[in-house]
């Protein structure tokens, strides 16, 4: 429930939905980035994600360490399940962009 999962921004949506395509533990999902947008974000940046929303921007080395810790806590499976569960894209990504068709 209180998992915070690090993810890497691949691209920002052009529309007003404040969403970004993010890669998290090997899965691509759209995540709401409106809470971190004021900090200035772009492709390549890492964010901590909680229930489908990015909560804060973090440094890459801290993100990698956080991933290691999730795995040590035995939470990687739960994190994967959570991220795979996100499905709130307004429009499905084009087929080429779809990680899980």
């Amino acid at each position, binding site marked *: 429930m209180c998992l*915070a999962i690090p993810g890497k921004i691949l691209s920002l949506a052009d529309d007003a939905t404040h969403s970004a395509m993010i890669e998290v533990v090997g899965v691509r999902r759209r995540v709401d980035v409106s809470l*971190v947008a004021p900090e200035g974000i772009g492709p390549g940046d890492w964010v901590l994600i909680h*229930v489908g*929303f990015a909560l*804060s921007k973090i440094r890459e080395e801290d993100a990698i360490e956080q991933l290691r810790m999730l795995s040590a*806590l035995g*939470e990687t499976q739960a994190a994967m399940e959570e991220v795979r569960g*996100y499905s709130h894209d307004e429009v499905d990504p084009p087929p080429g962009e779809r990680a899980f068709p």
Partner: protein
Amino acid sequence: MKYIDEFREPELIARTSAEIRRLADPARHYRFMEVCGGHTHAIYRFGLKDLLPPNIELVHGPGCPVCVLPMGRIDDGLAIAAQGGVVFTAFGDMMRVPGTQGSPLEHKARGADIRIVYSPADALKLARANPEKHVMFFAIGFETTAPSTALTLMRANAEGVRNFSVFCNHVTIIPAIRAILDSPDMRIDAFIGPGHVSTVIGCRPYEWIARHEGKPIVVSGFEPLDVLQSVAMLLRQLRAKEAKVENQYRRVVPWEGNRAALRAMAEVFTLRSYFEWRGMGFISQSALALRDSYAEWDAERRFSVPGIRVTDPKAAQCGEVLKGVLKPAQCKLFGNECTPERPVGALMVSSEGACAAYYQYEHRKSALVSIPA
């Protein structure tokens, strides 16, 4: 200690552990409360107790939102689910939490339309896709999660999605800490402050704990080294007879919090005058409700709920464990009637609950040891 090789920078861990031993006054007993369930899980998982001297006791706090939710609220949510055409949505953690007539999962088996979502935004998406149904999101969580519910409601409002509502059980951490400090059977010397909650609220809201209660508090990360460093920082403050708020988790937590998140919460939520916490009773201004401007999306106003207060099974001592008065294994039901497979109390349900964490790591360890060779 068997996990020490997994730690980042094991030498630094050993050095911090030695420093803690140096800083701790052997003539004194220290009680430090980790407020957040995430810390509780990490402390058990990494066996951090073994890295501390015996006179430092870590007391597990109320920071697991699933654990502090009273059973009556689950019953109320399930009563809404029983109404025709309603889809009940909640995070997976809620699914096995027992209500009086069984858990959401058991209600699902009996035919209620109950679905797991991983984000409140997914519940809204479900509402858009099923205009003939009403989708209710059973919202739980501290300030870490509340902004996501707020943004989802703002979107429902902007898009005019009317077949969506939120049954709001969001709670706030500061009044819970205040209740602990006010409780006569609690003697806490200092606090390990929650990490991800503080990402949203920042460090300022804790200042009264230091200033008025004279207790040090260190906002901490979740890695073993983070927790140990936080313990050392607390000891340094106590030694210098200081009480201040410090931020050990600076790489994630900004001092001022996340303004966009706080704005979204202020737009959608108002403080309830009081709310019941499992094991702790009623705490004033400790939970959030939807503002009048969001009444249309408020499940509590749209549906009638029984609103009956349900007391915990008498034998279960969740309250004492939750307040740190009892250790999990001191509860009469622990490991017998109450296990992670068949939880009686909520502390056994969530992996962040003190009982489940204790069962998973400590209890099994001692069970293994006790088998005769």
